[in-house]
C-alpha cells in the first residue's frame, strides 16, 4: 500500500515547498554560484565590472607558497584535533558508561562545551593560555618563554587544537555514550564471565562495536575542523604567528574581507569545498568498508 500523501493540486504543493526551496536557493545555491563566478573572474572590491579570467585565479593560488602553507597547517590541525577530540571523548564515555561515582553529573557537564559559541571558547582559551598572565603561564616559571603562542608557531597550533578539541569532544562524547549504552549489557557481562577486565572489554567488545559511530565522528570531525574552526582562530591567534595557524578557512576570510581580494577568496573556497567533498568521499569509499555494522 502506498502510504505517501500525494497532491493533486500542484499549485498548493508548490506553495507549500516554496519557502524551503527559496531559503536553500537564497542562502546556498545563489552564494555558491556567485563564488563560482567570482572564482573564474576578477571581482573589483569597490564595484565595477567583472572580467572573465578563466583558470588564472586557481593557477595563482596553486603557485603561491603561502597557500600551500595554509593547506599544510589545515591538515595538521585536522589530524591533531580529530585525534585528540575523538580519543578524549572515547575515554570519557567509557568511564561514564562504567557508572563510576558521580557519572550522572559528569555526563551532564561533559556536554556543556558544545553549547558554547566558538568565539567564546576562543576567548576563554586565550585567557587560560596567555603566556604572561594565563593559567598555563605557570610553566613559564620553569624556563622563560617555554610557552608562548604569540611567538611560537607550534604553541599557537597546540592552543587552537586544544580549544577546538575541547569543543568537539563534547559532541563526540554524546555520540559515544549513546552508542556504548546501546551495546547490550549481556555482551559486557558475557565478556566479564569470559574473564575480560575493563581494558580488554573495551578493546575486544566495546570499541569494535563502536566502529560505525567512530567512522561517523571521524567524517564529521575532519569536516568540521576544515570548515568550522574560524571562530576560535580569529579570537585566539588571528592566523599567526607568522601564518603558523593560517588555516585554509581563515585565509579565505582574511584574503576576502581584510585583503578585499574576493576572487582569490572565492577560488580558495571552491578548492576547500572540493577538498572536503573529496575527503568525505574517500572516507566513505575506503574507511567504511572496514566498519562492521553488526
Amino acid at each position, binding site marked *: 500500500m502506498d502510504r505517501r500523501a500525494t497532491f493533486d493540486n500542484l499549485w498548493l504543493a508548490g506553495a507549500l515547498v516554496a519557502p524551503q526551496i527559496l531559503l536553500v536557493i537564497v542562502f546556498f545555491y545563489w552564494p555558491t554560484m556567485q563564488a563560482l563566478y567570482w572564482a573564474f573572474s576578477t571581482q573589483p572590491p569597490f564595484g565595477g565590472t567583472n572580467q572573465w579570467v578563466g583558470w588564472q585565479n586557481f593557477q595563482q593560488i596553486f603557485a603561491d607558497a603561502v597557500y600551500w602553507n595554509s593547506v599544510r597547517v589545515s591538515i595538521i590541525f585536522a589530524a591533531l584535533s580529530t585525534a585528540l577530540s575523538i580519543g578524549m571523548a572515547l575515554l570519557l564515555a567509557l568511564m561514564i558508561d562504567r557508572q563510576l561515582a558521580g557519572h550522572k553529573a559528569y555526563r551532564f557537564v561533559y556536554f556543556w562545551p558544545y553549547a558554547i559559541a566558538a568565539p567564546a571558547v576562543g576567548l576563554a582559551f586565550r585567557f587560560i593560555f596567555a603566556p604572561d598572565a594565563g593559567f598555563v603561564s605557570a610553566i613559564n616559571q620553569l624556563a622563560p618563554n617555554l610557552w608562548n603562542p604569540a611567538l611560537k608557531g607550534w604553541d599557537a597550533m597546540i592552543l587552537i587544537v586544544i580549544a577546538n578539541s575541547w569543543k568537539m569532544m563534547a559532541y563526540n562524547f554524546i555520540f559515544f555514550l549513546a552508542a556504548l549504552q546501546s551495546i547490550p549489557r549481556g555482551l559486557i557481562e*558475557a565478556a566479564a*564471565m*569470559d574473564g575480560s577486565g575493563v581494558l580488554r572489554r573495551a578493546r575486544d567488545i566495546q570499541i569494535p562495536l563502536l566502529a560505525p559511530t567512530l567512522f561517523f565522528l571521524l567524517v564529521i570531525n575532519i569536516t568540521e575542523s576544515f570548515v568550522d574552526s574560524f571562530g576560535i582562530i580569529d579570537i585566539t591567534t588571528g592566523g599567526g604567528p607568522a601564518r603558523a595557524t593560517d588555516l585554509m578557512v581563515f585565509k579565505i576570510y582574511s584574503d576576502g574581507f581584510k585583503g578585499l581580494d574576493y576572487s582569490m577568496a572565492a577560488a580558495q573556497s571552491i578548492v576547500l569545498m572540493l577538498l572536503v567533498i573529496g575527503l568525505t568521499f574517500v572516507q566513505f569509499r575506503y574507511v567504511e568498508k572496514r566498519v562492521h555494522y553488526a
Partner: protein
Amino acid sequence: MEHSLELERISKAFGKTGVLSDIDLAVEPGEFLSLVGPSGCGKSTLLRIISGLERQDSGQVRIAGRPVDVLSPRARNIAMVFQNYALYPHMSAAENIALPLMVDRLSLLERLPLIRHLSPRRKRIEAAISGEIGKVAEALQIEPLLARKPGQLSGGQRQRVALARAMVRQPSLFLMDEPLSNLDAQLRVHMRDELTDLHRRLGATFIYVTHDQIEAMTMSTRIAMLDGGRLAQIGSPADLYERPASLTVARFIGSPAINILPARLDPQGHVMLGALPTGLVASEGLAGPVSLGLRPEHIRLHAACERAMPMATLRRSEHHGADRLLHLDLTENRQTGLIVRVPQDETGQFQPGETYGIGFAPEKAHLFGPSGLRMATRTLPARIGAAA
C-alpha cells in the same frame, strides 16, 4: 565430599524490594540442578549472584569449598550461557569461542596489532587455542560454522556456539540462564536432549535456570523451586511431582496443572468435599477450609449412576495424541474447573454435556492447609464415599 557449590543464607534486595531471602543450597559435584519458579521469583538474580555479576546483600557463596564473595566473575572459574546467547556480533564463531582462552593466556600487549608479533610465545599459544576450539567444535558438531558471524547463524546454531564458548575453558560449574527459551518448540526438545547428554559427558555441575517446568522435570537430577524469593522446595523431579511441599509447587510442576478443589476438614480431621467424605484424614490441623490437590491422571470418571460422589459436567474434550484431556465443571461449585487425563482408547464413552461422578484414590490426593503448606494425611482403611 566437597560440595561443588554452597549458598548460605543468601539475601538480596533491590532498593526496598526484597528479591531473595535466606536461600540455603548445596550442590554436589556433577549435579544438574534446575532453579525454577514463576517469573519474578528471583531465580535469575540467584544465578547472577552465583556468577558474581550481582553481589548479595548478605550470606556467603562457596564454590568448591572456597568462599568467592570478594572474587570477580572471572576469578570464580565458572562459565555462563545467557538467555540471548550474548555472542559478540563482530567476531566469528571461532573467535567467540576463543575469547575466554585468549584473555586467559595472552596479555593485552600480545593481542594488540603489530606489537603482538614481538611475543615469542604467541604463536605457540594461539596454535594450542585453535586446537582446543577444534575439539569443542567437534563435540558440539559446529565445525562447519566456525568461520561465520553470529548474524549468519540460526538460533540453534548460536545456542551451540554459546555452549562451546562456555565449555572451552573447562569450568567446574556451568550456569545457564534460560538457554532454550529463545528456540522454537521442536528445537527446544532436541536441545534438551543434547544438554542432558552434554552434562553426562562432561560430568560437570550444571545450574540451570528456567521458568519451564518441563525442562526442569526432564533434565535435572534435582530441582530447586523458588517462590517469592524463598526456597519453596528442593528435591528430585519425582519428589516435587509426587510430594509437592506447597500449593505453589503443586500448581507449578506438572502439565496440565494439578486440580485444586476447595475442601473442608471436619472436627475429626476427615477431609470433606462438600458433604461427602473423601476417605482422606488429616493427621493434624484444625477444622476449617483446606485445598485438595488431584493430578489430572489420578481422577477417574464414573457413569452418572453412582451416588455419593461429587458430580461434574463434561464441557470440552481435547486431543493430545496418546491422551485426551477432559475439561469438566463441578456441579456443586461451578467456578471450579477440573481437568482429567484419560488414555485415548477410553474416551469414547465420554460425551460433552453429560454429567459424571468424580472418583480418586485417596492416597494419590494432596492436602494443603490454609497457609498453602502440605498437610500430612492417612487414608481410612475402609473406603467410603468418593473412593474409586
